[in-house]
Each structure stands twice: as C-alpha cells, then as structure tokens.
C-alpha cells in the first residue's frame, strides 16, 4: 500500500518536473542559460518537497 502510494507520488513528481521543463523550454528558448538555471531550481524545490 505504502509502496503504491510512493509510486504515485514519484510519478506525480516526474510529471510535475516534466511539464515544468517543457513549459520552460518553450518559454525560454532564447535564454537557455537562464532557463536551465530556473529549471534546476524548480527541480530542487520539487525534490526537497517530495523527500521529507
């Protein structure tokens, strides 16, 4: 049960990261540096939120 729940959380996280990356990719095509930095900040935030 716990494992299934975690699996769902993991998938949600991946999706979250995923969608954000895509959105940011689109939004920041001309400033990749900024974009990757922002993306990584978001991933950092998501990962920290997920691992308690």
């Amino acid at each position, binding site marked *: 049960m716990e494992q299934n729940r975690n699996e769902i959380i993991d998938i949600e996280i991946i999706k979250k990261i*995923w969608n954000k990356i895509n959105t940011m990719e689109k939004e920041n095509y001309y400033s990749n540096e900024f974009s990757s930095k922002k*993306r*990584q900040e978001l991933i950092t935030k998501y990962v920290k939120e997920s691992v308690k």
Partner: protein
Amino acid sequence: MNINYIEITNFRQFKEKMRIDFSCFDSNKITIVFGESATGKTTLIEAFKWILYGKSDYNNEYNHDVASKIGENGKTAIVGEIGFDYNNNSYSVKREKHFVKRNNKLKQDSSFDNYIFEIRITNRNGINKMYAKDDAKRIIEKVMHPSLFEYFFLEGEKLNKYGQDMSQGKNGQTSPFSRAVKGLLGIESINTSIKDLNVVRDKFMSDFVTMSNDEKTVAYQNSKRAFKAQNEKKLEIMNKAKKEEEAYKGLVKEKEAEIEQNASAEEKQKRLNDVNERISKLKILINNERDEIFQRFRNDGYKYLMKKLVKQSRDTFDDENMMYKGIPGIDADAIDFIFEHKRCICGAEIKENSDEWNTLIALRKNIPPESISSEITKYKERLSSKEREGELFYKSYISKITQYENHINDLNKEKVKKENLDDELRNTKEVSNIKKRRDEYQKSADKNKQQVNRLYFEIENNKREIEKYDRLIQSFEASNKEARKYKKYSDYCSYLIDKITSLRTVKEEEIKKTLSSEINNMFKKFYDESVNFTLDESYNIHIVDKNNNEIKTFASGGQNVAIALAFISAIVKVNAEKVSENDLLNEKLNSELYPLVMDAPTSNFDPTGLKNFCDNIPDVTNQIILFVNNKDGKLLKDSLTGIIGKEYTIQKKGTYESVIKEENYE
C-alpha cells in the same frame, strides 16, 4: 495550423512591399511559388524565420539598393508580417526593424526600441488582442517552437543533405534530425530533464559532501581511537616504568641501609687512619727520644754513676777531724791583715806574742789557703754540687725515660688499636662503592620517574585530545543529520533519473517503431523498392534488403529527398497523433498539424520520383507551400492538378530587386 499570408518590405531583394496569400483549403492545399535560381525563393523561407523569430541566415536583411541610396541620417525599415490560423484563432505577426545611416553605414535606429514585434490575435468572435515583444515572443514559441521551424520550412538543399546524412548514418546524437525528432516527440525534453536532474543531483551530492562531516567524523573517530590506543600503550609503558622506578627506589633504599650499616666502618677507617698517623708520629718521637736518652747518658750519665762515690767522699769529709776549725769567713789574708795592723777587727790592740797574738798564729795555721780544712770544705761543697747535679740528671733522665716509656706504651696501645681496627675493618665493604651503586640506582629511578612524568603528561594531553574529538563528533551529529537529507535528495534524483531513463527507453522504442513504419510506408510511395528502413538510436536510417542485409549504396539524390520527406512526414504524423491521457511522458512540444513549406524539394527527383512526390506529398499534411524552380514547373503543375490553390512567380527586376506576382490560376 494554416499560413494565410506573408508580407515583406525591404527584405533582401524584395525592395517593395510584397505579399503572398497562401491557399488554405484542404481540397487545394498547395501553393506554388515559381522562380528561377537566385530570384529569392530561399529568401522567402528566411523571411518566415525572421518575422517569427527575428533571426535569419543573413548578416543584413535590408535591401542593398535601398541602403545604398539613402543619405546620411536617412532612415529605412524592414517590415514583415505573417498571418496564420492556429487553434481556431487568427494570428497576425508583425516585425519591423528600423535603421538610420550614420557615417555611411546603416545602424539600428535607437529611436525605436530595438524593433517592433507584435501579434494581433483575433478569436472566432472577432475580438482582437495585441501582444508585443516578450509576450509576442512567448506566443510564437508556443505556436511553433523555433526548434521545429527548420523541419516544416525546408530548404531544398538541406532536404537533400538531411536524406544523405540519414541514409549514410551521419545523423549522430546531435544532428538536426536527431534533435528535431527528439524535440518533436518529447524525447529531447526527457533528455533535458535527465540532464537537469543530473545537475541537481550532483549539486545535492556536492552540498552533502560540503555539509556532511561524516568523513570528518570518521577521521575524528579514527584519531580518537588512535589516541586511545596510544594512551593504552603509554599507560602500559608508564606502569612498567613505575614498577621499575619502585624497584630502583627499593635498591636505593637497600644501598642506603648498606651505607648506613657501613658508615661506622668509615668512621673506623678514619680512626684507623688517625691511629696510623699517631703510630707514625710516635715512632718518630720514640726514635728521637731514644737518641736523646742515649745522647744524654753519654753526655751526663756519669753524673749519676759517680753519685755513690761522691756520697762516700762527702761522708768521709764529714768526719770530725776533717771539720773546719777556723773562724768561718776568715781567711789567711784577713789574719795577715790583723798581724800587720796588730789590731783586732773589733779595734782592740793585739800585741805581739800576746795570747791573742799566739792564738792568731795558731789560727793562721788552720785557715786557707794554707788550711786543708778549708780545702776540704771547698771540696765538699763541690761534692755536694756534683751530688746535686747527679740528682738533677737522674731526675731529668728518669723523667725522660719515663716519657719515652710512656710513648712506647702509647705506641703499643695504638698498635693494639690498629690491630683491632684492622680486624674490624677487614669484614666491612667500601662505602664509596655502595654509594656509587646507590647513585646508579637513584639515577635509574629518576630516569624512570622522568619517563613516568613525561608519559603522564602525554597521557593527560591525549585524554584532552580524546575529549576534544568527543566534543567535535558530538557537534557533528546535528550537521550530519542535516547533510544526510541532501544525500537523500541526491538519491531521490538518481531514482528519478533511472525512472525517467527507463521510461524514455520504452517511449523511444515505441516512437522508433512507429516512425520506421511510417517512413517505410511513405518511402514506398515514392519508390517502389523492395527495401526496408530501420532506425538506430541516433535516428539514422538504415536501409536493408528483404534478406535484412544493409544496403550502403542505395540512395540517389531523389531517393535522399524521398528519405528525408518520408522521415519528415512520418514525424508530422507521429507528432499529430493524439497522445494518451495516461501516457506519463505525454509532453510533446505540440500536436498541431503543421504546414510544410519547402524550397526546391523536387530538384533532385527524376520524372518518376517527381510524379511520386506529387502523388504523395498532399497526404503528408493539410497545407503545402512549395518554392520550385521554373524547370520543374510544368511537370509539377501537371502532376498536382486540382490541388494547387495558389500560384505565384518571382521575377527578377535587377541585381537587388525581385518582385512576386500572383498567377491567375483559373
């Protein structure tokens, strides 16, 4: 997505305002723009790129003729506009770039804010909304991401090259096709996310390493253990040294007792030395005294020896007859004086021959010098003197002998003492040797004591070090706990990377399978070849015969273009497929069906290939814009009869000027 029109002014050779309206009807979805070589077909593709993204392959987009004719401080502008429908809205995208001439050079006009870039969106109810600059940029990127552009706005030469690269395995992971496919189908995003996750994971790990004192803790624990081990060893050595010290102290005590025990011997020795000294002195003294006794006896011994004789002589002279009969104190001279003066010494006259006179004559006979008695008296006196001398000598001689004898006695006593002391000392040890041994033992005891003290301080120092490490290790506990969180984050990133990577593998396999199938279908529409296409991990196309043997020398120019077109149409189709809601990696960049804008796509085809192209290209997507060379014009037009909605011709008016004219297609 359908492109409605493009307008350009002062863009390269299109000096005047030019406009092309594209056919948007599904039934006649094709717009053809004819033109000889170098009239501006490729320029039009670049114009699309410039209007949408502000970039082109040219250093300067303005018309050279216009630029050269304007004077100093003169101004000019490039203007472009594209109209398209997207997602049930109409978009009008306008870009202007203004220039001013300074020092005979065209420079961007700073009186304009860089350039004008705006989009007007009109919804199906006719409501307009304007967006500018960054907002406009974001909208365009959402509609058609720049990474997609080159695969929907294809230049002929590039198309041929793409086909060649694909069929010759030159794609590589970073080739435009590879990137395009991955971008279109979401793989690139997956890769980006994996890269980002890797960066984040590394950062977490780096933070963990920076924050974590685990290594330090281990190091400190090791140091602590080392100090403890050292102390155990030192303690062992110290205890041994203590024991040795005690042992040496015991020996010192023993020697002290021995010294004490033998201290009387030392005193005896001193006494013996004194006795010896006295014996020596006595011997000398006795020798001298003996010599003196003999000497005295030789000199004055007779005085004693003649004593008896003297006594006898004196006794003899003490006889009555030998007594003196004269008047004591009167000598012959005194009688003779009385005779001469005939008067007594009392004054009375003495007459000659009187009695007195005769008495005196008789007296005169008995008195010295003529009197013997007088001589005897003198002699007796001398005897008495000699007798006294003899007595004196005797007394003195006896005294000397007594002294000598006393000294002999003393000597004998001392000799006895010496013998006794010698006997006593014969059984005693030399104290100085014992002292020497005692000092040696004391030295060893001191040495051990020093070692004990030194070790004690070292052990105490080590104890302080151990306490210090204990405190440090304790203080690291909290920070290590915090650091371990970062390790968890890093591990979680690794987990996500693995998960996404495995999902990507599955996804990519599915995509490749679909793409291969589409490519095969499409290519076979161009060329009826009994070959198959497979895709490798870099999206290179491998051509294999029916026996699955790879064909290396298959593609001609036309076939290359066919490969590229087959590939692109496959991508377009895969991209346009609706994604499943349950698909985890469902973020395709866009699932809109894009128009294909192609520059000279048919220049490499033979007549069969061209015909096949014309037969099949309309099936690829819902709008097709072709820029083709006049030489292919007739055949193309014949082959596409019925589906060409618009037709234009580019005519060259001069070196720096072309114009676009719409053909009356009807």
